[in-house]
């Protein structure tokens, strides 16, 4: 079997590299959403995707290291932190919407020279 073949077999059989590949894919999708979309809410969702991609990778690594307790704890902390970030982020979006009546990030250009 060629190396490429064995890689895909591992992915299909639920090996570690499958999880990591999926996590990296979600991470890139999230990053692309932030960079390409022009609605603040969608960009914010992109950020959440990036964080959760990291979460997925973390849990996969932890599982394949016999359920490392430190990593699993880290995962719980990340969820809490992401919730705090969401609270502040949504408040900021609402604050900006009250001033501009839009959540289009291209219109947030008053500070440019």
């Amino acid at each position, binding site marked *: 079997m060629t190396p490429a073949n064995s890689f895909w077999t591992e992915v299909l059989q639920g090996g570690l590299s499958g999880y990591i590949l999926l996590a990296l894919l979600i991470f890139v999708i999230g990053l692309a959403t932030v960079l390409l979309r022009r609605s603040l809410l969608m960009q914010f969702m992109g950020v959440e995707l990036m*964080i959760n*991609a*990291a979460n997925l990778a973390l849990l996969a690594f932890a599982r394949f290291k016999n359920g490392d307790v*430190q*990593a699993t704890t880290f995962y719980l902390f990340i969820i809490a932190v992401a919730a705090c970030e969401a609270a502040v982020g949504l408040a*900021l979006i609402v604050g900006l919407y009250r001033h501009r009546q839009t959540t289009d990030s291209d219109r947030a250009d008053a*500070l440019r020279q």
Partner: protein
Amino acid sequence: MTGARDLAALLPLAIPAAAACLLPIAALDKDQSAQKWIRGAMFFMAMLALLGSFFYVTQLWSTGHQPVYAQLSMDRLAQFAAIFVLIAAALTVLQLWDHLHQEGWVKGECLALLLTSVSGMMLFTATTHLMLLFIGLELFSIPLYALTATLRTRSEAAEGGMKYFLTGAVASSCFLMGAVLLYGVTGTLDVSEMGIRLSVAKGLDPLALVGAALLLLGFLFKASAAPFHQWTPDAYEGAPHPIAAFMSVATKGVALIALLRIFPGLVAGGDSLLGVKVRMAIALAAVLTMIVGNLTALVQTRIKRMLAYSSISHAGYLLLAFVAGTPQAFTGVLFYLVAYLAMNMGAFGLLTAFGLVGERVTFDHLRGLGWKRPGVSIAATLCLLSLAGIPPTAGFFGKYMIFKELVQTGHVGLTVLAVLASLVSVYYYLRIPVALWLEQPKTSIEREAAELPAVDAPFAGATVLVCGALVLACGFLQTLLVNGFVARVIRDWMGIIR
């Protein structure tokens, strides 16, 4: 797992955090109906918490006690960072009192957020464990997003806060992904342990490379180094002046100190493939930062944008020390940070001391003001000369220490570039003293100012004077400061690593 459970390591963080939990109770007022004494009590409480933590840390410093609580170690480097952050925060609180009254928006939650940020910064600099690093990073960033947009009646503030939040959240998630990938490759969350495992590994795992790059991105973003600097001018302009000063000084400072702490682990002995690549990336970022920061600062017409680009360029000089990578260069970084604290706080404090509110403060607003309040203006001029790196001020010696090490490790080209960049910076820094002392005030601006009530900013004025004095003191007593304080940090910290 270490069994050390010394509560003394937690106390410096716990004091500001506890005060941050108490402050919102005092801040429960609608509109501006709060009595002046309540407002005074809130600021007093915040100062008290900062002072309490400060005295505790200085106590630890003088006894040489370096407590450890599990992954959190309050060693000399962490104590240095804590003192640095606490002084910056205390100056910020004093300036906030004046600035928020000028804006007519005195709210206690500002102080609560600031104190939360302070304890997050202490956590961020006191550990090599990636989980605590991430929690510390978020604990100091999230309050800063809210602080940037704190003057919420103003649409520019909301916009600045939003931009800072979105870019900051992306940088944090990149940092997180980097941490997770490095954990996956090495199987440990501790960076110092990670360095050992990476240095014995054969070849270079692409995942480790991506992880290290993403981790570095998080640090460079917080230090506002190019190409991750675009948020800086907008966030600083939207934020209240003292908060902008705090962000520029403390965020950059702790990002660099934390990078300094994990740097030996990340470069893994220095000769490994990963180490070489990390150093190269930092050198590239430093060069780009100096060029972009200085050249863009030249063409700014608004003072806060100019100061924002200047703070970007200073991140470039500081990153050069990581390229050199010697203990003396790291000593230079810490000395430079102390100097930077004084000079940038003074430069931003000038705006508050003259009561220039709003996000469009141009050089024209400062014209001729020097003669009205000479004391504050002289102190601010000293701070600006120091930012430009003119001897015998502190800024000159900070740059000198870093550049000297750079030459000695054979990076002459980089040094020449850095010196040229700091020569360019003299031009834009001197625009402020020139406006203050040499130019006639514009009649339109003078008429506007005459209609407003007279500016009374005793605390902000005092902080500027203190900063001016500190800049001179760091300049004249630099050998004393370096040997007694800064070099000791690096020596003790390097001792722990070896």
